[in-house]
């Protein structure tokens, strides 16, 4: 926990902090048999610390199953963390009373991955977007429809789409409806869990641009979760890389792209398809093997089983997250 504390003293951004995650750990019990005896745990997230500042877009990247979505869902209080602390504007989000939970939830909203599963198929668009407005009295009883029309306009849809059902829209349009629904709560932070990975490539850029525009307009901050570095590259100011429940590298967008430190980050970079002239082509390295099971994560550095630079020490000793440059953090023995 020592390193986490150290980590947060890192800069003078304190007053700008929107969200602080400290030592977040989430283990899912595996139950077996009639009595539901716990036979093990899935170590989905282990000791992740991360902060998001006002107006910032943080990217959270990693292979599927590395725990990045779990982090997002813990932030939204959809999951109860096993350990660690999540503070929103300096206030611990655990143990909020009922009224404060409503307030907190209105400030952090989520955009989901699958635009086909994220909209209730039996509700019209005006109810999907307007339900929060009516339930939480975010608009007058007579003007809520105008508010919905306004939100539809904000995300690039038309007001007459209100009376339709979700199945009448394309994937990209549905994702816009999901964004409008999140905006209806007037949030300050939006957690976007793989916001474009289910969409056609041609639509992806549209949605990412929309997110960028909305950020300006509504003074938002984002946590963008993605498995694809190329997606995050477009919009993130800082990028966090996760591997098997651990945060392995955290740096500004530029630093991470120009000078990736962790062997895992480098492998991810090499995996991005690039058009390069033949003469400048570097040797690319791709990872071998599969991600180990999160039920029994490898001892020492969790990446040592696939790391091209693994040493004897990596198998035994767990590396800690170290500061090695200007706000550049890495969890690797190479930089001890």
């Amino acid at each position, binding site marked *: 926990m020592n390193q986490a504390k150290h980590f947060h003293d890192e800069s003078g951004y304190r007053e700008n902090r929107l969200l602080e995650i400290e030592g977040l750990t989430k283990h899912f019990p595996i139950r077996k048999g009639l009595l539901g005896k716990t036979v093990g745990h899935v170590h989905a997230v282990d000791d992740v610390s991360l902060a998001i500042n006002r107006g910032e877009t943080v990217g959270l990247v990693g292979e599927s199953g590395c725990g990045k979505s779990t982090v997002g869902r813990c932030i939204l209080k959809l999951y109860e963390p096993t350990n660690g602390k999540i503070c929103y504007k300096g206030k611990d989000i655990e143990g909020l009373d009922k009224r404060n939970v409503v307030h907190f939830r209105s400030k952090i909203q989520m955009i989901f991955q*699958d635009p086909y599963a994220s909209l209730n198929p039996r509700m019209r668009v005006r109810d999907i977007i307007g339900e929060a407005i009516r339930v939480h009295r975010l608009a007058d009883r007579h003007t809520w429809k105008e508010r919905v029309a306004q939100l539809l306009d904000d995300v690039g849809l038309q007001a007459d789409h209100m009376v339709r059902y979700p199945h009448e829209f394309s994937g990209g349009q549905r994702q816009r409806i999901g964004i409008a629904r999140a905006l209806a709560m007037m949030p300050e932070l939006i957690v976007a869990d793989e916001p474009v990975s289910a969409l056609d490539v041609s639509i992806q850029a549209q949605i990412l641009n929309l997110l960028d525009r909305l950020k300006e307009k509504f003074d938002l901050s984002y946590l963008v979760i993605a498995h694809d570095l190329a997606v995050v590259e477009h919009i993130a100011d800082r990028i966090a890389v996760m591997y098997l429940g651990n945060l392995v590298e955290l740096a500004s967008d530029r630093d991470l792209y120009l000078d990736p430190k962790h062997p895992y980050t480098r492998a991810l970079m090499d995996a991005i398809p690039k058009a390069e002239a033949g003469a400048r082509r570097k040797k690319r390295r791709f990872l071998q093997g599969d991600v180990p099971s999160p039920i029994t994560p490898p001892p020492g550095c969790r990446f040592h089983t696939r790391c091209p630079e693994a040493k004897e020490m990596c198998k035994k000793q767990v590396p800690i997250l170290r500061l090695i440059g200007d706000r550049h953090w890495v969890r690797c023995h190479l930089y001890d």
Partner: protein
Amino acid sequence: MTATAVYATPRRQTNRIRAILRKAWHLRLGVVGGLIIFAMLLVAFGVQWITPHDPYEQNIMQRLLPPCWMEGGVSSHILGTDHVGRDLLSRILYGTRISLVVGLSAVVLQIVIGVFLGLLAGYYGGKVDSIISFMVNVMMGFPFILLAISLIAVLGPSLQNIVIALGCTGWPVFTRVTRVETIKLKEREFVLAAVSQAFSTLRILIRHILPNLLPSILVLGTVEVARAIIRESLLSFLGLGIQPPTPSWGMMLAEGRDYMLMEWWLAAFPGLAIFLSALGINLLGDALRDVTDPHTRKD
């Protein structure tokens, strides 16, 4: 579809009729089912005006008459008469009322109990789920007939008590379906979105989960109406249901049993009535599922 829409303006009226006909053809089996149910409803409401005879009127001189088209049949008794000379057709028509009332009310009771418990078990999980699932398993493992007999024995045979007995024994299927669907639905992203928008659990269950359960409940419900009608017949057949002389299909089947070899119509026609009503309800249920599912609905 598009082609007709283009030419729709000048002859809107005819096209509208055509569209309805096309839809009806698409759901033709459902239409057949609907017509059967509609006929049953008409009979149930207007039975006192359409029956040729009083269903309770006995006439020993004319007992065990065959249907009118057979040798010895009388044109005034279209389906013949039973062992005390009551008109079979009139009794079958009156039986419709009993069957519909029992079938529908029993299933409404089943749905109220079953869906409520299923939502609780599926949404809360853990201990609540364990207890409710245990109850379901006990109920499913217990022979229906035994349970219904004990209930009727305690409550006494009457129309109301048959409904209670059928309702209290039939709900586990609804709990099972509701529970499984709820478990699936609560992990769906639109439910997570509702949670993250700070809606109350009650609102999430009623506005977000329940409407998405309706197609399954509707389809299961229609099948269960048919089943409840059959079970009512079964109870009446055993003498635990509707008490004579009130006409019930099951009881008529039981009375006809003794004459099955020679006077087969006494058992065959009530049996046919049970079969037709169950078939009609099932066909209608299938069509209803297609219509209510927004994915297949075309406006």
